[in-house]
């Protein structure tokens, strides 16, 4: 057991954990979208989990730094918030938020983050990015909504961890990037029993299809 201080409060944790894990386990929320407990190598792509620590001059991502005894962490400094707000607005410029039709239980993770860092759900003053992607894509077992996808990569990662022949992948690149399947074996995929990707999606970009009606 080691002790670290977070925003002036002392918490106990274990060697080897990341700052993000230690905080979340102790009920201290740090915004995060791409963090996946089971991943050895964090993607660290959402850039929302910034904190300041006594070890570094500049803010660091909490999902990539491990704890050490006596570490002093601050989660809500001005520098941290500035970085988080910018990252969040960049995400929201590509994520078209439609609370009325969005099937995700509210408040969703994005709403929670917005409230936590005190910004709106719109990208202002950044522009809304009009990506040249389909409205919805049929992926056999579920439907993919590119406009809701924030590219956290969690679905692709859990799929890879669970299934030897990982069916789910990122395809294309840049603003065209989408999550998809490929291959003629799509109909005998293990998706029916797995569903891990849908469960892990933080934004409702992957929605299970209703079971085929028995009529």
């Amino acid at each position: 057991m080691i002790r670290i201080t977070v925003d002036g409060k002392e918490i106990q944790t274990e060697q080897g954990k990341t700052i993000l894990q230690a905080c979340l386990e102790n009920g201290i929320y740090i915004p995060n979208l791409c963090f996946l407990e089971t991943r050895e190598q964090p993607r660290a792509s959402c850039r929302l989990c910034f904190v300041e620590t006594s070890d570094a001059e500049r803010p660091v991502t909490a999902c990539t730094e491990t704890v050490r005894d006596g570490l002093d962490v601050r989660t809500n400094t001005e520098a941290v918030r500035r970085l988080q707000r910018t990252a969040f607005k960049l995400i929201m410029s590509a994520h078209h938020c439609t609370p009325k039709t969005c099937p995700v239980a509210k408040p969703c993770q994005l709403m929670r983050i917005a409230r936590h860092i005190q910004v709106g759900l719109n990208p202002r003053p950044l522009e809304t990015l009009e990506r040249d992607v389909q409205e919805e894509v049929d992926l056999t077992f579920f439907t993919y909504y590119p406009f809701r996808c924030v590219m956290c990569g969690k679905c692709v990662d859990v799929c890879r961890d669970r299934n030897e022949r990982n069916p789910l992948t990122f395809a294309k690149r840049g603003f065209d990037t989408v999550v998809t399947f490929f291959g003629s074996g799509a109909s005998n995929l293990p998706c029916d029993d797995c569903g891990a990707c849908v469960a892990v999606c933080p934004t409702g970009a992957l929605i299970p299809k209703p079971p085929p009606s028995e009529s």
Partner: protein
Amino acid sequence: MNSVPTQTETEEREMIEAIEAMLPRFAKHRSALIPILQAVQQEHGYLSGGAMERVAEYLEISPSEVYGVATFYNQFRFHPPGRHQIKVCLGTACHVAGGDIILENFERKLGIRAGETTPDREYSVERVACVGCCALAPVAIVDGTVLGHMQPSRVEGLFVQFQVEREREEREKAEREPGGEQDA
């Protein structure tokens, strides 16, 4: 998944057979993926769905992974090249000079998107980066010929030209073939 074109089965089978024959040249390791894809494309002009699946099988990785890697790079095509190949430059100079408008003109005219081929295999449209004659921006390359200072009206003109050419070819063919209609 949906960007893989339908094609005649024989063509696909021949392609797979040819790939089969060349695969042993490459190490059975994931690091060989891109070299293999490049070799396939060099020989066949594009990567078909079946080809990518065969490569995945050989390297013992998932077809999705092959697809993910292949679609990441601009150099790979997923549609057979058309008889007429249209390349529109979207390098910096051409982009600034409205190259995207020219591209859109071609796309709308042919009803396909960049990287695709018309169903009759007549035309394929691609976007390319700077082709080295920025002073002529915006530039299109049609069947290997560089066309500078492109304008929407010239796009129209090109297709008129193709049309005339095709009609002439058809006429010549008809004349050559015995039994074809002939003007005495």
